């Protein structure tokens, strides 16, 4: 049953190839159904493999399936192979499971798009790349998958490339990710130079031997990998692309920028955990950066007006939690939170997509409100997602977040405090969003009446929506969209069962991957409960504050939404300013002087040399046989002379 | 000089002797013969046919094919003579081999014949 593993990436790849060849002919909706079926098949193959893995002995659940030897070259060889172990299988199941639901949802969401089949082509390619990333049995395959998902992300963010902002956002995501990829690549080189292998498993493998590395080397590799992870998982300071990436179609935001791709960094960190163990300083860096990102992004989310931007900052913040968990050694908690987050954040994004769809591409929350009655399924499921992310028991978010906070408490009280404040802010901004969108008075009609006065406040990318003629009444979305919402809502509500304290299924399952590197909680049950209580109080305060401001208060809420926070503390502008000013000057310098004179000069010089040399050499090519024979004879004489001189006969 | 190379000394001696012999004979002829050139005598000898026109004159192309075929089969005969002399010591193996050789040659002839090469056009 384990050998079904190759089907997992093969099915989306097949889907991609079929769509590439015949996507246009299949058209809508067949192309969508095909893509969905492929990812669902992949999920089923994942389940089969998972069942096979469960049948194996608990402590030897690590299997490598080599598909073929790729790039053999002397002592260096890279195999295309899959590593099946509890970690990769956990990732596969939630990636394909959530992925299949989002594929299904997209069939409804992308209805009527002229490039319907292209969208699914990219989605399948993305699923394939993501599965290669997760299943790859060495760093190079992981990196290929890493680049693959990056490319798909680029293609999908700028899917509506006719919109300038979408094209720009795609470029931004791509460029920012290159910074992270640089770190990843150098880390690969360093690993190979120091260990002579890139393969994870096995006696000679990376994981067995990472612990034996000198600490400085281990720290270098770990930090470089973290640079890669920070780029892909949108951590400070490389997070800037993620909020902009919301320009992509909403299913893309849900799939790539919430549930799967952005968690690749967390996965990578968990995968190389023996390396991190060998470099404790790296763990500290990761936990501090994670906590800082969590808090920073939560403050930004408070003031966003765009329904998707709130969720984007929220994603950055939640990813911060995961890195915090990695940093304090709570790997299982990180993976657990990754999974629950995938459920509820995908749910929230899809819910937001449903709202946007129902309101005809309206994204500004100030022009929503009171949608609870008009879109009951969307509202109900969204509220489940809200409760889950806010951390209300017994919804899934409570369990995973609580575990991270407990581990943080055990490691460093300050980290814990940051975590609790973030939890409070999370509850606050999510409540704000729910209240603005689904409760309160409907504002989606008046918005158009007062379009002129609102225009000054409206963010530019929403101009087309605002300029639209008076909209029809918001409506509930079609079943292809609501069914995934309901399924995800069930998962978001009950996801905590995966790792319920006392049952500890996930922890028990993942334990062999991390062994003794896993942080053992050493806290009495009483304190554990009081910690949960403190968090709970914070969450309730957050919700009540939001209620007071957005439901009860008659005053405009603007003063609770500082401009500075909306602009993410001016971080983005500062970055843009830097790259626009000194950065541009530097680029100009390199372009004109270094590149223009130095490199181009050298290239042109060589070209001239080659041409000159060639034109002279071609004179030897007279076309006369006698000259050719002479030439060859000359060559023969030279060879002979060489040998005769060598032997000393002459 | 190795034993082996010494054996080649014979070759060198023969080469020297051959050169010497040629020089001797040509030299003797040059010394002995009277030299009374006439226009007739100075004409290049071409199998008794009067050379007419410039040196790069055209010749009948039909000869060319025959010359070619002749050379071809004549050269192959070079292989057959020694074989015929030692037929017994080669035994059956030799017979079969030569049979194959001749059949292949014959195939060439068949091809030439079917191509109409043997007809005098």
């Amino acid at each position, binding site marked *: 049953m384990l050998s079904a593993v190759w089907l997992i990436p093969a099915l989306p790849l097949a889907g991609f190839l079929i769509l590439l060849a015949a996507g246009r002919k299949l058209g809508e909706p067949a192309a969508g159904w095909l893509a969905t079926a492929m990812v669902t098949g992949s999920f089923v193959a994942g389940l089969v493999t998972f069942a096979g893995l469960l049948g194996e002995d608990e402590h030897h659940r690590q299997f490598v399936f080599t598909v*073929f*030897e*790729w*790039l*053999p*070259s*002397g002592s260096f060889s890279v195999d295309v192979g899959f590593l099946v172990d509890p970690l990769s299988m956990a990732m596969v199941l939630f990636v394909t499971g959530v992925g299949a639901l989002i594929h299904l949802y997209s069939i409804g969401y992308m209805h009527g798009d002229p490039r319907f089949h292209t969208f699914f082509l990219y989605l399948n390619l993305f699923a394939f790349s993501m599965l290669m990333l997760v299943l790859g049995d060495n760093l190079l395959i992981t990196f290929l998958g890493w680049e693959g998902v990056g490319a798909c992300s680029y293609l999908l963010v700028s899917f509506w490339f006719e919109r300038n902002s979408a094209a720009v956002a795609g470029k931004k995501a791509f460029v920012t990710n290159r910074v992270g990829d640089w770190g990843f690549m150098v880390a690969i080189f360093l690993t190979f130079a120091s260990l002579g292998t890139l393969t994870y498993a096995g006696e000679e493998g990376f994981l067995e031997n990472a612990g034996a590395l000198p600490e400085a080397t281990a720290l270098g590799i770990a930090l470089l990998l973290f640079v890669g992870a920070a780029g892909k998982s949108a951590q400070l300071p490389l997070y800037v692309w993620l909020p902009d990436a919301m320009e992509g179609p909403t299913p893309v935001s849900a799939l790539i920028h919430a549930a799967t791709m952005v968690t690749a960094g967390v996965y990578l960190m968990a995968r190389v955990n023996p390396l991190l163990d060998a470099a404790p300083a790296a763990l500290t860096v990761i936990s501090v950066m994670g906590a800082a990102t969590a808090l920073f992004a939560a403050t930004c989310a408070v003031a966003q007006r765009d329904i998707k931007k709130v969720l984007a900052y929220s994603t950055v913040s939640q990813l911060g939690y995961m890195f915090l968990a990695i940093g304090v050694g709570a790997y299982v908690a990180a993976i657990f939170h990754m999974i629950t987050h995938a459920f509820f954040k995908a749910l929230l994004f899809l819910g937001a997509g449903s709202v946007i769809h129902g309101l005809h591409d309206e994204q500004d929350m100030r022009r929503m409100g009171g949608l609870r009655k008009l879109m009951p399924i969307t509202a109900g499921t969204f509220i489940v997602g809200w409760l889950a992310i806010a951390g209300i028991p017994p919804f899934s978010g409570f369990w995973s977040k609580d575990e991270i906070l407990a581990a943080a408490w055990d490691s460093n009280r300050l980290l814990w405090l940051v975590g609790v404040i973030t939890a409070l802010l999370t509850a606050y901004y999510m409540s704000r969003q729910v209240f603005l969108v689904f409760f309160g008075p409907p504002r989606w009609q008046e918005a158009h009446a007062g379009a002129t006065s609102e225009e000054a406040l409206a963010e530019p990318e929403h101009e087309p929506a605002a300029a639209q003629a008076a909209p029809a009444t918001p409506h509930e979305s079609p079943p292809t969209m609501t069914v995934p919402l309901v399924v995800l809502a069930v998962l978001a509500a009950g996801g905590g069962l995966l790792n319920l304290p006392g049952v500890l299924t996930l922890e028990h399952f993942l334990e062999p991957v991390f062994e003794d590197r896993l942080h053992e909680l050493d806290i009495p049950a009483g304190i554990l409960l009081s910690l949960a209580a403190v968090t709970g109080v914070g969450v309730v305060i957050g919700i009540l504050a939001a209620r007071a401001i957005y439901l009860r208060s008659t005053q405009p809420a603007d003063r609770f939404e500082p401009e500075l926070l909306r602009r993410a503390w001016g971080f983005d502008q500062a970055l843009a300013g830097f790259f626009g000013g000194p950065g541009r000057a530097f680029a100009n310098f390199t372009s004109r002087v270094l590149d223009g004179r130095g490199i181009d000069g050298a290239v042109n010089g*060589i*070209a001239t040399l*080659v*041409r000159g*040399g*060639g*034109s002279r*050499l*071609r004179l*030897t*090519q007279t*076309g006369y*046989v006698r*000259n*050719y*024979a002479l*030439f*060859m004879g*000359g*060559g*023969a004489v*030279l*060879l*002979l002379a*060489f*040998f*005769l001189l*060598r*032997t000393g*006969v002459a | 000089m*190795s034993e*082996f*190379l010494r054996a*080649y000394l014979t070759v060198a001696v023969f080469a020297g002797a051959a050169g010497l012999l040629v020089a001797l004979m040509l030299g003797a002829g040059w010394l002995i013969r009277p030299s009374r050139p006439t226009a007739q005598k100075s004409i290049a000898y071409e199998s008794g046919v009067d050379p007419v026109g410039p040196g790069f004159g055209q010749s009948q192309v039909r000869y060319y094919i025959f010359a070619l075929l002749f050379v071809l089969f004549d050269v192959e005969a070079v292989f057959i003579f020694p074989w015929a002399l*030692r037929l017994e*010591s*080669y*035994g059956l*193996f*030799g017979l079969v081999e030569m049979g194959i050789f001749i059949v*292949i040659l014959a*195939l060439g002839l*068949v*091809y030439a014949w*079917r*191509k109409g090469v043997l007809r005098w056009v």
Partner: protein
Amino acid sequence: MTPAVIAQIEPIATPEIEWFAVSPLLVLVGGALVLLTAAALARSRPPRGFYALFTVVTAALAVACSALLWQRVTDPGRGPFTAIGGAITIDGFSVFFAVTITAAIALGALLADDYLRREGLDGPELYVLMLLSGTGGVVMAMANDLIVVFLGLETLSIALYVMAGLHLRRLESQESAIKYFVLGSFSSAFLLYGIALVYGATGSTNFGAIAGFLSGNVLASNGLLLAGFALLLVGLGFKVAAVPFHVWTPDVYQGAPTPVTAFMASASKAAGFAALLRVFVSTFDVYRLDWRPLMWGLAVLSLLVGSFLAVVQSDVKRMLAYSSISHAGFILVGAEAASDRGIAGALFYLLAYTFMVVGSFGVATLVGGRGDADHGLSAYRGLSRRRPLLALAFTVLLLAQAGVPLTSGFLAKFYVIGAAVEADSYALALIAMLSAVVAAFVYLRITVAMYMGDETEGAEAVTRPAVRVPPGAALALGVAVAFTIVVGILPSPVVDFARDAVPVLLSAP
């Protein structure tokens, strides 16, 4: 060997012939003879494409025989062996070249099919000659004796001389045939002289015996042997078109009918390298310190002259000819390493190169048009609009020749340069990489012409006859492109093939 031996009368020892060992040769020769005779005796013309089909089937049969041989030589219980009284060796190396050369025959026949009809030259002759010439190449690869090398070389070459002049109405074709013939005979003389000197120095022409003699004896004076090396290198260097013995290449490649050029550039070069590798790297291994500098020099000259001169050409066939010289330089880089890894790299290169070069000249065959004359760069301008698929195929093949990753060409260069680095030939590796950069310019130039030909060419394109892509050539191009890409992505089967095909030295039984 005293003269007295000749006088004695004794039964001559006739060798045991192991038919299985020579089965690929028999299939090729048999196919050629059957085709020739049948075509001569047939009363009516055979259906279109019959000759090519017959040739391809023959080639396929030869590959099947090679596969059986491969099974036998890789079977640990049996392994490589010599046959026909030690005259030929059947090892992975010979089988590898049998497959490579046979592939070149099949692809060449597919290209020739429509070409011959287009040029009004249809007949069995080209196919017969191609089969016979290929046989000679395989003999060279199987040879375990210098004389057999020479025999194979002549079989290969003489057929090629005729093939080069096959386009009866094209003066350039005749010219190239004569040039090739004269210079080829000239180089054969060098080779033969080299064989004589090596025989003189070692007392044998059998590879196993030579190697045994060289490793067992220290020559007091090795001048004779080294002179033999030099002359052998001249003869074989001519065949593989290594500078300075390359002078014939551009003229002959340009003048010969294009499918013949494709065959010549692939099969003939492969056979030359088979002999070169087996003779020098394998047999003269003990003297590697003596011949490696020469190989180094030939490699550097070939790389530089090939790529430099390719840049200044305006005729695509000539460009490809010079690029094939620079490819020879790359393969020499593998040979210069004088290691198993170097040989494996060279073999991989040769197989990859065979498909690339046949495909490239295949495109030239089609673009050349009726009369086989339209080979200027301008003929390719705007090809992407007229024949997008053809342009795409050519682009893939050119990029592969340039060594772009994800093509077989990249890995080929990677493996030979890797072998050079392993053998500490850093300077050579550096020169090889630099010349690859220079050569890339040539390939890009053609690609750019195909894609960037401006619209003003439109008027000219109308007067230019449309490029036809007949099914046979399409199949050949498809195979070449598919091989190039698939091996670029999944190289390991071919790498294993090449790795197991390192020549084995066996003396006569």
